[in-house]
């Protein structure tokens, strides 16, 4: 997919809304549509909106195989993460004050954990292995009697690497700690079965799965029951867990997006897998390229590559006709290399030179071929400009050089 001749390969950042989803959303906005407040119990405008919201809830529940009553609407995955982490920790603080998470979580998990530290909780930040996987055994060794919550992401947003959440869930269940999973990158990419997986809370986002921005959901298990302290009060919507008038059109959009994801997951996967394989094959032909993450244990829609001797931001600037991301979009305004890659033990210079390519439903053959052509060319030109490349060609080991760091 491309607009104004820019190729979009940043689907892990956000996806366009599927036109089928947008059409459906339009039915819930205008005077001719079902614009009612789902909380209005006394007239058909409210009833119709409520019906649509509940249908959407079922679509979300169907995709992850849970009870629709276990789905709580939020403004997005960030709010869902906040609600799960702060909500559980604060509700159960008399039971324990220890939380376990990992160093490569999204900021929407790390920042609430930092906040809880300020409130007196103790947080353990686990190191992933060099592929970006948080091992169940690391959880097992970190868990203790005072652990109330473990929060581990399903798919890492920068690497695409998968964690074994079913296995981690068994450990947390055994130790009586609640288990929250950030699954913002998972929906429509891998199958999730919450009936089988011992997971207590799971965060979802609509806009990574061809739905609109500004809507997400939190799965809150009913059996065994998980309780939380609400973050937002005012009206007691969503069984008191999240007050505020429900955004019918957004919710309908998320429902429709997840319904389509459920129906078309296999088709999307086959196409994206094909592009991933082609991309990987070609990118490996470039010298000194490193694939970050675990090729044997990752989703094909995300491919994170470091191009040694080339700095990532300049590479992105050189790839001006291609929309990609260096690290996570939230941090690309700062000078820090990706904290995720650093946590894997990647050298800073490789962390500085990483690019995340992410493919999606609307990616086509031309997008992939054109990107590969441009990429090879730009990497070559930037290396011609790079004193590090020159030193490398001269046979100098860069690790032995004494730098005049700033």
């Amino acid at each position: 997919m491309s607009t104004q001749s820019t190729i979009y390969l940043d689907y892990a950042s956000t996806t366009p809304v599927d036109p089928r989803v947008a059409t459906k959303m339009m039915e819930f906005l205008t005077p001719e549509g079902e614009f009612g407040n789902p909380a209005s119990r006394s007239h058909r405008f409210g009833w119709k909106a409520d019906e649509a919201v509940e249908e959407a809830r079922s679509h979300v529940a169907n995709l992850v195989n849970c009870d629709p009553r276990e789905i709580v609407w939020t403004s997005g995955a960030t709010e869902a993460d906040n609600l799960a982490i702060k909500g559980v920790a604060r509700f159960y603080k008399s039971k324990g004050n220890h939380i376990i998470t990992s160093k490569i979580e999204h900021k929407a998990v790390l920042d609430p954990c930092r906040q809880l530290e300020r409130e007196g909780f103790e947080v353990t930040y686990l190191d992933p292995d060099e592929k970006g996987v948080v091992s169940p055994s690391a959880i097992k060794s970190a868990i203790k009697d005072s652990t109330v919550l473990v929060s581990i992401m399903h798919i890492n947003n920068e690497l695409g690497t998968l964690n074994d959440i079913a296995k981690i869930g068994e450990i947390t269940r055994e130790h009586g700690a609640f288990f929250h999973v950030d699954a913002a990158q998972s929906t429509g990419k891998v199958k999730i079965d919450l009936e089988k997986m011992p997971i207590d809370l799971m965060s979802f986002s609509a806009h990574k799965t061809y739905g609109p921005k500004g809507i997400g959901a939190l799965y809150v298990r009913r059996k065994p029951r998980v309780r939380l302290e609400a973050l937002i009060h005012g009206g007691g919507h969503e069984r008191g867990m999240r007050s505020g008038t429900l955004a019918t059109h957004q919710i309908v959009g998320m429902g429709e997006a997840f319904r389509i994801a459920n129906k078309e997951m296999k088709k999307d996967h086959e196409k994206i897998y094909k592009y991933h394989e082609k991309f990987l094959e070609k990118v490996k032909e470039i010298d000194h390229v490193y694939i970050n993450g675990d090729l044997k244990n990752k989703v094909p829609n995300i491919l994170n590559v470091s191009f040694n001797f080339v700095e990532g931001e300049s590479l992105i600037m050189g790839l001006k006709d291609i929309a990609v991301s260096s690290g996570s979009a939230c941090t690309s305004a700062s000078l820090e290399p990706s904290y995720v890659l650093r946590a894997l033990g990647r050298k800073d210079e490789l962390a500085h030179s990483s690019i995340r390519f992410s493919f999606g439903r609307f990616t086509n053959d031309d997008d992939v071929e054109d990107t590969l052509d441009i990429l090879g060319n730009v990497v070559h030109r930037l290396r011609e400009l790079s004193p590090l490349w020159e030193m490398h060609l001269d046979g100098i080991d860069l690790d032995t050089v004494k730098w005049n760091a700033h």
Partner: protein
Amino acid sequence: MAYSKKVVDKFENTLNNPEAFKVGRFDPKDSNVGTGMVGAPACGDVMKLQIKCEPKGNTHVIKDVKFKTYGCGSAIASSSELVEMLIGKTLEEAKAIKNIEIVEALELPPIKIHCSVLAEDSIKQAIEDYETKQ
């Protein structure tokens, strides 16, 4: 990304036409060449600047310059901007160049000012190297 059009243009021109923009190297052992290299890969930028000078009166004049830069678009644009300022200058004039001139020429945002500092330091170092050889 808050890049000015000037940074983008300078970066792209340098990338697309490296020779015209003085990308390259001189033999660092030549007695009329001074080399400066500042920054570190771990910090995300390394700038290498070389000046070729010849005596003129009781001073020396920069006849030609070559550079290579590893870094963000602003770092590359800053080096390229500096290189343009240098040719024909005496060493005294070159020493007097301040990073703020690069900031202004490229309209660098505050977060990228260190790129211009790096450029200023690279010329200072190159001159020092040249002077020790004389």
